[in-house]
């Protein structure tokens, strides 16, 4: 297994290099000159030319690429054009906040989704199944943007229970540790609900289908015929196999940890990677776009790797 993991990690290097190269070329060829954005409209037009020269954007593209690649190999992804700071520093500030939001959302998504899926499957055709299906479909159909705003209006303005925006209260850094953690948790409730519970509906659908498939298998009938208690049949025999497609889904959801929260971060003014990426794209901040893309690429590779490893753990028949 270890050799397999090392091989996969090594194989990802040319993949990421290819990704970086493609991104570099695409963002530089995309229409729109960043220096037009970075000088005042009433400033001397030569200011844009001066800035272009200072940023090295007047060099031929291959020269810019080689310079970037040389620096990137040493871990220097350059300075953000729009934020006057190193790309790594900006990403390092934003990543933990997005990881916190997205990993909790992912946990909620899978915990709630699996639970609802199993309950639905076990109560197939009954009232509970219909209620869970309808509620799930309703939540899943709501655009995240709209759902977020509605929750803010309901739970922040009409019934002021949760904060409307931000990662923490103003000056929360001065709080005692426990208060500080509670404050962050308090701010997490609505965004995690939007990201996690709404997506849980989809997970529940997968889980329900997978569970129904498994429950119809001969070995489940055999287990029941042997007189095993229902909790053992479901928990030990059915769940383990029904979870296999969910593990794939989980692995594929990991890249979403960094990029998928864009809309929710905007609505809840959550200062994470989603906002960094969107701002970088709109300001043609080339180094930052490439840095974020590389990070997302690495997450995709990692997600697939995690999915494969979990697969092997869940199903002893699978060996690499």
């Amino acid at each position: 297994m270890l050799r397999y993991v090392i091989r996969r990690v090594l194989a990802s290097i040319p993949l990421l290099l290819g990704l970086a190269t493609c991104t570099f070329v695409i963002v530089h060829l995309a229409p729109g000159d960043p220096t037009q954005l970075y000088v005042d409209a009433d400033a001397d037009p030569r200011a844009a030319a001066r800035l272009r020269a200072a940023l090295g954007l007047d060099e031929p593209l291959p020269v810019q690429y080689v310079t970037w690649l040389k620096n990137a190999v040493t871990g220097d992804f350059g300075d953000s054009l729009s934020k006057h700071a190193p790309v790594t520093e900006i990403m390092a500030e934003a990543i933990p906040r997005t990881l916190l939001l997205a990993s909790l959302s992912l946990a909620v998504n899978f915990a709630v989704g699996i639970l609802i899926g199993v309950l639905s499957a076990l109560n197939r055709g009954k009232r509970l199944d219909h209620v869970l299906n309808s509620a799930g479909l309703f939540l899943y159909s709501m655009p995240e943007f709209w759902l977020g705003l509605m929750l803010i209006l309901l739970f922040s303005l009409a019934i002021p229970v949760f904060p409307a925006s931000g990662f923490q209260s103003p000056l929360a850094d001065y709080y005692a540790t426990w208060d500080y953690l509670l404050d962050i948790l308090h701010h997490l409730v609505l965004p995690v609900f939007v990201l996690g519970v709404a997506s849980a509906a989809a997970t529940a659908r997968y889980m329900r289908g997978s569970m129904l498939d498994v429950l119809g298998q001969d070995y489940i009938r055999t287990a029941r015929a042997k007189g095993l208690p229902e909790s053992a049949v479901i928990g030990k025999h059915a769940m383990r196999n029904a979870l296999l497609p969910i593990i794939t889904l989980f692995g594929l959801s990991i890249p979403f940890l960094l990029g998928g929260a864009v809309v929710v971060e905007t609505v809840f003014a959550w200062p994470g990677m989603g906002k960094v990426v969107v701002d970088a794209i709109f300001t043609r901040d080339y180094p930052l776009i490439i840095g974020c893309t590389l990070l997302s690429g690495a997450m995709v590779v990692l997600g697939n790797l995690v999915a494969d490893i979990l697969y092997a753990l869940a199903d002893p028949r699978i060996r690499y």
Partner: protein
Amino acid sequence: MSPRLRAVLILLPCLFAACGKSSGPDLSNTAVVALNGDVESFNPVVTRSMISSEINSLIYPQMFELTFNLSLGRLEYGPALVKRWEFLDNGRDIKLIIRNDVRWENGVLVSPQDIKFTYEMIGDPDVASPLGNYVDNMIFTNGRFDVDRSIEIVNDTTMIFHFASVYPQQLFHLTVSPIPKHIFKDVDRKAFANHPANAKPVGAGPFKLEKWTRHQEIVVSANQKCTLPGPGLLERVIFRVIQEPTTRLTELKKGTIDLMWPVYFEDVKGLQEQYADIKLETLPPRVYEYIAWANVDFEEYKKSGGKTVRPHRLFGDARVRQALTYGINRKGILDAKLGPYGELAVSDFSPIFRWSMNTDLRPYPYDPQRGRQLLQSAGWSDSDGDGVLDKGGVKFEFSLYYGIGNARRAYAATVIQENLKQLGIVVHLTQLEPVVLYEKASSKDYDAFLGGFNVSLAIDPSNRWNDISDPYNSAGYHSDRVSELITLGLRAPNENEAARYWREIQSILHQDQPFTFMYWIKDVVAINRRLKGTKINTLGILDRIENWKIGDPKAYATF
């Protein structure tokens, strides 16, 4: 639902509601301001956005105390770091007497050396300051800004700025906040914009930076050592970055922010009727929207290297541009989207500059009939009866570009399309990402686009109407008389004389309609009444923020 589960569901929100700032600092003397974007850095030499400039002005010392005299419509200068000033050599040079009791936060005196160093950075091409044009009229040697010949330090409190010529904005170009030389003196110029000190500024203004969390909040606290003009009355000001307008508005309604802008026109009525705690003020108009028409054939112009100037096939005739302005119901768009928070424009000279305004000019009314007559007189008719005007085999049909994400412009574009259809003109609407639209406009790759412009506090039309090659002359407009008037206006010894030239330019622009000038926008600012002493004016939202205070120091709610 089991009673235990029900109890948990009821108690959970109460638990969350109870958690919060039990151990946090007292926020009763703190104001919270919502921003729709973050600052780029805390260095006035390299920042460009309006909000960065405003926040930097709280932290750095100000050279002059600026006041915008609304009744006269002009900027007035008072002493600040500069105690006194006098014009020398018939107004070409300016002598400044600097205060000797202003200190940076770390105790070092603010000196003329700091001011000279700041201008040296502005004029250095490696730094690529967006303020580069501030030194353009000082002394250059071999094509480079010569800081030693431009800025002469006489002694610890006296310095002289030397200019190449007399022009009305000389004093305005001395308003850049100085930065501390002792912090930046050894920095590599190419790395100046990204210097770590730009995120931890050492200032001398009424507030100092306490904390900056990118994309989240900027916290400034009163600088008790400040002597220029003095520490802020508020203990702290928190700037919260909230991009989404509805979320921002919700925070305002909840009372968790004290000031926000812009408030959309559609939200004004609800705020006025339901939130007595919130007052609304307007910013004098400095932003206008327009339709840029390609006055000349840009393709031919570029192909010939700027030598061939041929009128544009559709918009090259001033009568056509006038007809388009008559044919577009600008008042209808204004009423629907801005109401009382906008006014029709006659040119790109902001109404705030009262002294320079040509009050004889009136906005073109919506008069499609007059538009049809003008088009006919310019030779456009529907010769083949297909409902579309044509001339010499060319149909009057074009693409109107506008940026994605601006609901007002999207609405305006639809009205324009419908209005011009009534004149027999086919308009194809094309939405573009704003960056792409900027590039199209500056590279003159368009027939018509809908845009907006934020005018400077100093009148300088040379970037707009002087030369076709100027990237900001989106229309590609040129008039010998306008160019002459711009030169005369910029070199006029005083504003009264400059006003004569500016009025004539407005008259010519009104006649020629290089753009269809749509309307000026007055941004609405919402302020919680507990915040006192705000002075929303042309100079910005945060002007004189050191005088802000909390009238009702009730505890600040933290969710």
